[in-house]
């Protein structure tokens, strides 16, 4: 089959690789109809996540048709149309029982590696390094899906791929980002990053009752989408305006009740002599600046508020403003999304017309064009927001 393969830092290729085979009795093989490139793939692409190997198949957002099932799979049959959640979860461990599927205790055969870097292991994830299991991803024609009786979510034939594909990751992720804010009516939410994840965090914060949702980014086209597509009430272009001042302005000095980091470990550093950066830098004593959005979110958050981290971090962070965090009674919530528990309720919102996640799609390409898709998405070329690939 054809598959998108990680060759080296910023080098992916579409290659011929062997077809997947059933390895466990609870596996299914899915023939992929649509798959997408995620901001997390960019972290792998740019070489920030350790334990990638040449030859690894990428991709963790995919859907398609079940074409083969293992002997222990009773809940699916060949021909079913399914969306596959990106964390692999067994359904039987303590974490899965509590709905924390992204920290499933059984799905990562390389748990030892993950423990080394993170203290305890997390779930296996499709196409997301060896530390997270060494599972091939779904930017391919076919994928093996372990625990197929737990993960794949059946969808009816009458709803287009583009409306349900993002149930695999970014829609639930954005939703969880907003849900973790424990919003009450009247709350103000600020979202760093108007990428696809940020867009869905904004839309979800609105759905969950936030009065005011402020999008922060530097790409005008993304901020436009945040306002027109996701429903942000205000936007801040951090290249034009000092973020902390702007947020204080919008909230009469309180700061947002909840701050969502949807930018992650590659958050951009403004090296220009802008007031915003200078002030933030002064405040947080930035050194290598890598968790820039996170630091700013902490500094901005209202006393007693919530910092919700859905942007991905891989290792260690410097100059974490612990004093602000501790003294101002902030709370932090985070996690890779526990996708499984959100699929059904979000599907209902899609069916009812409350949500149409397809608004983030700007580029549709053939799987063969994946390398170009990665580069465009990374460089935000041609107003690229989200790339969907068809094998």
């Amino acid at each position, binding site marked *: 089959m054809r598959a998108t393969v990680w060759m080296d830092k910023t080098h992916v290729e579409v290659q011929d690789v*062997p077809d*997947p085979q059933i390895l466990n*009795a609870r596996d299914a093989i899915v023939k992929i109809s649509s798959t997408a490139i995620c901001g997390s793939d960019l972290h792998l692409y740019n070489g920030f996540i350790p334990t990638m190997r040449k030859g690894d*198949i990428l991709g963790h957002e995919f859907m398609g048709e079940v074409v083969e099932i293992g002997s222990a799979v009773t809940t699916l049959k060949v021909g079913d149309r399914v969306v596959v959640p990106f964390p692999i979860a067994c359904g039987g461990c303590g974490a899965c029982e509590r709905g924390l599927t992204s920290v499933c205790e*059984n799905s*990562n*055969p390389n748990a030892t590696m993950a423990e080394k870097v993170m203290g305890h292991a997390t779930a296996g994830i499709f196409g997301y390094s060896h530390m997270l299991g060494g599972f091939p991803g779904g930017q391919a024609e076919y994928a093996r899906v372990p625990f197929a009786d737990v993960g794949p979510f059946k969808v009816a034939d009458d709803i287009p791929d583009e409306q349900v594909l993002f149930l695999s990751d970014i829609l639930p992720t954005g939703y969880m980002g907003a849900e973790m804010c424990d919003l009450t009516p009247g709350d103000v939410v600020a979202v760093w990053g108007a990428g696809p994840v940020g867009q869905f965090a904004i839309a979800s914060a609105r759905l969950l009752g936030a009065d005011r949702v402020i999008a922060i980014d530097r790409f005008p086209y993304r901020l436009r989408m945040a306002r027109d597509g996701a429903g942000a009430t205000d936007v801040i272009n951090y290249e034009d305006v000092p973020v902390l001042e702007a947020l204080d302005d919008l909230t009469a000095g309180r700061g947002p009740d909840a701050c969502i980091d949807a930018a992650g470990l590659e958050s951009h*550093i403004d090296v220009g002599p802008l007031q915003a950066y200078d002030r933030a830098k002064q405040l947080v004593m930035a050194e290598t600046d890598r968790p820039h959005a996170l630091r700013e979110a902490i500094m901005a958050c209202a006393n007693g508020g919530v910092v919700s981290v859905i942007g991905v971090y891989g290792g260690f962070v410097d100059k974490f403003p612990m004093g602000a965090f501790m003294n101002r009674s902030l709370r932090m919530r985070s996690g890779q999304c526990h996708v499984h528990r959100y699929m059904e309720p979000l599907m209902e919102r899609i069916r009812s017309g409350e949500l149409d996640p397809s608004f983030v799609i700007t580029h549709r390409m053939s799987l063969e064009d994946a390398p170009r898709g990665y580069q465009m998405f990374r460089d935000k070329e041609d107003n690229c927001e989200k790339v969907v690939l068809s094998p």
Partner: protein
Amino acid sequence: MGNDDRTRRLVNGLGLFSLGLGVAQLAAPGAMNRLIGAKDDTRTRAVQRWLGGAREVVAGTGIESGRSPAVWLWTRVAGDIVDLGMLGTVLGRSGRRAKTRGRTAVATAAVAGVTAADLLAALRLSRDDTDAGYLGNGRRGIEAKGAVTVNRPVGEVFAYWRDLENLPRFMTHVQSVRHRGDGRWRWRANGPAGMDVEWDADITEERTDEFIAWQSVGEASVANSGRVEFRPAPRGRGTEVRVRLTYDPPVGKLGAAVAKLFGAAPDQQVRDELRRFKQVLETGEVVRSEGTPEGAKSRRTVAQRPAQPAPA
């Protein structure tokens, strides 16, 4: 230093070796390529200097620092690699801003140097521990232990283990355990160099739903014993399982080979086995990925297959 101490240290070191080496071999090639395979410019030359300079310092101090310094070193390796990537990005971004660029390059070089040093020290430490042999100079017991929480009731977890014939399902070295009918169990395991080793063992003590202890009898090529304890986990979280194994390899070549086989990171092997035990009870099978087709096996960390299907 007593045997126990030495073994513990050895075990520690070996555990770190197989784990750490995994992280290094998987994570570091990228970093090393970035460092060494890069074009020859001021940045890479600076890196080379640091590489050479830092080497002696760290190799000298790394090994002696504290109880399990390698843990820290490996953690640092991971951190350094992330740092490096970050700095690389900054460097790419700052473009023509000469001043910033210069500073970043210096920082990159510094971090690169430290990474190389950490790697060296961690590898060095691990290698030393591997060489620091228990082999050759006589008998020395190898002890291995581990614990896991299994999300099943104590009765079920106990019963599964008590049927020793189940053990090969999650113990990779053990090919089979057969009840001989006289209260004695015949174990057959993979020995070194493709040899099979067999021995008989008795259950020496047990209390239903609490513990099982066994001990090899007679002419076992590797005298060994084990004890597993079961305890209900708090708040209905299943069963806490704690295992302790001892191997007493004989003097001589076979003993040395066996000791090596069983002795390579013994705690880690027990942890791998318990992980598979948990998987079997909670999910019905040992979980496999294309990168680690045989399921949880930390030795795989040094030789991961790529995450793509194996040829049919």
